[in-house]
């Protein structure tokens, strides 16, 4: 090889240096690191992670994803992304991606690769066999708030009308079922009335049971911006047993003992009434007071007032403990009531509770009491954790008790409506709701469910007290299909693992927290043989129809036969869902066709009954005449607001007289600490995705147990020490983080870690809200003890 001039100079340089110390020079390999990549095309879509619904652009280089960026002026994120979002393209071609269908007859055998033909045949045969031998109740579908709306819709259609089973559930049961219950019972209609747009118009933020700085960073940024723009006028109240990064922008942090927030909320209402800060006009025009019981009784304002008499700020402050004083409660109530626009934000801290629905009702009570609803900058706004929990599962019929279009399954009229629209015989969909999540996996444990399809979620890690339910999933007589992109704790227990296309590898709609539907169109090919779920369901249903010799099953997917799975198939499903099913419902999406969504970069907010309205972006605020076309349609007088929600025939908002009730499991002498779980900014849910991004894994390699410094000093625990967290259900061993975060007497653990020692859902409690059936992940009792000094730990991700 010819030596270049530079090589010659280098050789001379090496020789001169070598001569000094008498070494024979010989070149070693030089490491070269690429620092940046060029992008030749940007394509639009929506972020894959949380429920905020950030609009993103995926950067492609030679057809491969290499970068991600926000778009200035986007309605949801204003162009900003969080670290998870900006790195998500890195997992698209990750080597761990599942690329071929995998099967094993027994769960103790290794998987072997099979063809799609065989895989769908097996899936259909097993489900058909279960239905034949044990009836429709022996099969189940467990989906996810990360599935596209089209996917959830077609799955539940085949399950309900095809297999005649209402065993259609999904992980949103674990995250927002209580919010649904709250909205329906208080306002008569699910999902927030307002939108993110209200943030820039609000003057008071009441954040309770949410660490939005970490769980919804991009929305938090909007709040922070608002606070910094008007630091004196805008007030932020953060109520949480743990001081979190969210508290940084707060004027006031109310730190209460876990579980006492119901009393706190009632006490704020007490102060608002006592100091006459309520909006008499709003209450008179739009509200009713309801006393729960059988039957529910109508009461008046005076009864409500009398009912709150127990919650004087003084009594409540002593009950709440922490840093709360009676004066704090009064101040918070005044800020809430007197601001020109108050927005409440809450998430899992309120929802994942044995009385999650009540807690939701009590927040809504405050908004009704003060008239902080429907006007600019005022809303009772529940945050959502998954990108399509609202759009797909809440609206698309992804839970056991609801049909698509916000229809309770047990109401004959609405059920028959759906059966007629689908063209299946009346009575095809059972009247009785199926198993809710905890009941479903209990039924798996008991062997009542013989075949279960788990789609795009990992219940083996995300269910509370998960060891108990993993036993059921591991049963040899339970056939388990898992559709996934990566190996997870759940694929470990599957018989059949089907590789699916990921975001941007398939087409479909995500509906985010603020009723906004956004379309992401297929841009890149899925690796290997991975397929979109809509194709999988269609093919599976056709085989089922054959095996069960049932033409109605075929009827469910007949309109979609032969369509191209990358675009035409999801489009046809979306058309059926929006044009037929949402017509005339409160989430009317008829205007939001694919054609419109392709034009509307920021998507459309429902109600959007017409194309004209959808092309204006849809409805920013529900129930307000002049903004919401359905409010105009349903108006019977000239009042500005019309609460036409499907659950309240009288078009009123209901105050619920809900008492304070503590957690299902409170600390005692044996288990003296509160254990609470939550999220960290760098990871998302079970880390099956974020754990495969090296930057994020470096940033947060494993779960810690956060301990208050006072408790740590008392127990002789030092930073990094290994600590055993024991509950009545089992124990975990995690490194300690000593931190003025959780209050004294409480420890906090992140739930993302997949490692058996640190998987905190092995010890959380599976008690659930009797109304919403959402488990109480947020509170149980534990004891902690130091087991050793710091240990070498390694991050862990399940491999196939």
């Amino acid at each position, binding site marked *: 090889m010819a030596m270049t001039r530079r090589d010659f100079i280098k050789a001379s340089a090496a020789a001169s240096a070598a001569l000094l110390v008498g070494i024979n020079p010989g070149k070693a390999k030089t490491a070269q690191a690429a620092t940046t990549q*060029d*992008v030749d095309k940007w394509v639009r879509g929506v972020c894959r992670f949380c429920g905020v619904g950030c609009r993103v652009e995926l950067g492609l280089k030679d057809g491969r994803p290499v970068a991600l960026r*926000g778009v200035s002026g986007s309605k949801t994120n204003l162009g900003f992304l969080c670290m998870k979002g900006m790195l998500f393209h890195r997992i698209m071609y990750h080597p761990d991606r599942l690329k071929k269908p995998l099967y094993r007859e027994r769960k103790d055998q290794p998987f072997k690769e099979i063809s799609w033909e065989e895989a769908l045949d097996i899936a259909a045969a097993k489900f058909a066999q279960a239905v034949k031998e044990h009836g429709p109740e022996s099969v189940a579908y467990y989906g996810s708030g990360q599935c596209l709306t089209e996917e959830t819709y077609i799955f539940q259609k085949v399950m309900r009308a095809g297999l005649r089973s209402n065993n259609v559930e999904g992980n949103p049961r674990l995250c927002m079922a209580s919010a649904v219950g709250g909205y329906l019972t208080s306002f008569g209609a699910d999902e927030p009335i307002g939108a993110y747009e209200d943030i820039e118009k609000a003057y008071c933020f009441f954040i309770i049971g949410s660490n939005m*700085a*970490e769980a919804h960073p991009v929305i938090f*940024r909007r709040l922070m911006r608002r606070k910094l723009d008007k630091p004196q006028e805008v007030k932020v109240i953060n109520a949480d047993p743990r001081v979190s990064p969210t508290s940084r922008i707060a004027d006031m942090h109310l730190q209460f003992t876990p579980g006492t927030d119901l009393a706190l909320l009632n006490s704020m209402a007490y102060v608002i009434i006592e100091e006459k800060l309520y909006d008499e006009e709003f209450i008179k025009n739009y509200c009713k007071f309801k006393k729960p019981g059988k039957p529910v009784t109508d009461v008046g304002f005076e009864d409500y007032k009398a009912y709150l008499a127990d919650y004087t700020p003084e009594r409540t402050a002593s009950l709440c403990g922490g840093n709360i004083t009676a004066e704090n409660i009064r101040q918070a109530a005044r800020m809430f009531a007197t601001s020109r626009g108050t927005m409440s934000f809450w998430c899992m801290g309120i929802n994942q509770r044995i009385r999650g629905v009540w807690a939701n009702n009590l927040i809504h009570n405050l908004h009704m009491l003060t008239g902080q609803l429907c006007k600019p900058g005022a809303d009772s706004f529940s945050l959502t954790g998954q990108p399509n929990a609202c759009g797909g599962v809440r609206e698309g019929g992804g839970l056991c008790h609801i049909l698509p279009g916000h229809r309770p399954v047990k109401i004959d009229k609405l059920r028959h409506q759906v059966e007629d629209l689908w063209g299946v015989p009346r009575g095809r969909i059972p009247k009785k709701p199926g198993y809710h999540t905890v009941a479903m996996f209990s039924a798996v444990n008991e062997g009542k469910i013989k075949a279960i399809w788990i789609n795009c979620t990992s219940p083996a890690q995300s269910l509370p007290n998960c060891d108990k339910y993993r036993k059921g999933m591991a049963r040899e007589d339970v056939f388990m299909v898992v559709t996934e992109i990566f190996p997870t704790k759940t694929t470990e227990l599957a018989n059949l693992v089907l590789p699916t296309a990921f975001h941007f590898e398939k087409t479909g709609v995500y509906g985010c927290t603020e009723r906004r539907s956004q379309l992401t169109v297929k841009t890149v090919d899925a690796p290997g043989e991975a397929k979109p779920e809509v194709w999988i369901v269609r093919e599976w249903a056709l085989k089922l129809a054959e095996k069960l010799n049932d033409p109605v099953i075929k009827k469910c997917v007949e309109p979609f036969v032969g369509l191209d799975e990358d675009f035409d198939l999801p489009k046809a499903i979306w058309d059926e869902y929006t044009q037929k099913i949402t017509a005339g419902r409160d989430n009317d999406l008829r205007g939001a066709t694919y054609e419109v969504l392709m034009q509307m970069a920021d998507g459309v907010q429902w109600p959007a009954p017409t194309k004209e309205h959808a092309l204006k972006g849809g409805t920013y605020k529900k129930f307000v005449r002049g903004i919401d076309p359905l409010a105009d349609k349903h108006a019977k007088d000239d009042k500005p607001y019309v609460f036409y929600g499907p659950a309240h025939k009288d078009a009123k908002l209901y105050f619920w007289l809900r008492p304070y009730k503590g957690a299902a499991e409170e600390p005692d002498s044996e288990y003296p600490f509160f254990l609470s779980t939550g999220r960290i*900014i760098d990871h998302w849910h079970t880390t099956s995705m974020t754990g495969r991004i090296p*930057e994020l894994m470096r940033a947060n390699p494993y779960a810690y147990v956060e301990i208050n410094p006072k408790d740590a000093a008392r127990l002789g625990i030092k930073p990094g020490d290994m600590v055993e967290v024991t509950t009545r259900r089992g124990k975990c061993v995690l490194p300690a983080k000593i931190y003025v975060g959780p209050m004294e007497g409480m420890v906090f653990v992140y739930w993302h870690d997949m490692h058996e020692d640190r998987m905190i859902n092995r010890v959380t409690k599976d008690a659930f809200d009797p109304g919403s059936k959402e488990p109480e992940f947020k509170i149980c009792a534990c004891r902690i003890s130091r087991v050793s000094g710091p240990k*070498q730990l390694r991050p862990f991700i399940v491999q196939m």
Partner: protein
Amino acid sequence: MMKKLVMWFFMFILGAVLLAACTTPGTKEVAVKQKEMVPEQKAAQKVAMLSHPALSEQEKYIPCSECHARTTPEVYKEWADSLHGMTNVKCFQCHGTFETFQASPDELKCMACHPKETEHKPEGKHCVDCHLEHRFTAHK
């Protein structure tokens, strides 16, 4: 050491004879152009991780900010009090991790959240040329 190198450098300025010119690399047209870093930035990038005290595999799992709050408190404070600090935009998001460290982040990183700003900045300038590092509040 430094003196010695400088001395050598000036000796060569006096005595060097240039034999040939380097070939200039052709410019490629792409949608995103990474601005050529000035030599100083490049050097900083190389030096920064080298002069970092050696870390064990375990220590590399500690967030940068945990040590830097103590070792470079002024830099930490710049970040912690900034909008980035408040919204949890962490060190690694701009600077990368130990494997991908960049003292001066390339613009693709800025672009993730500030697409418009990276397009409208003056030609040939890098964001940090004008904006205060870590704070980004004002122009220098």
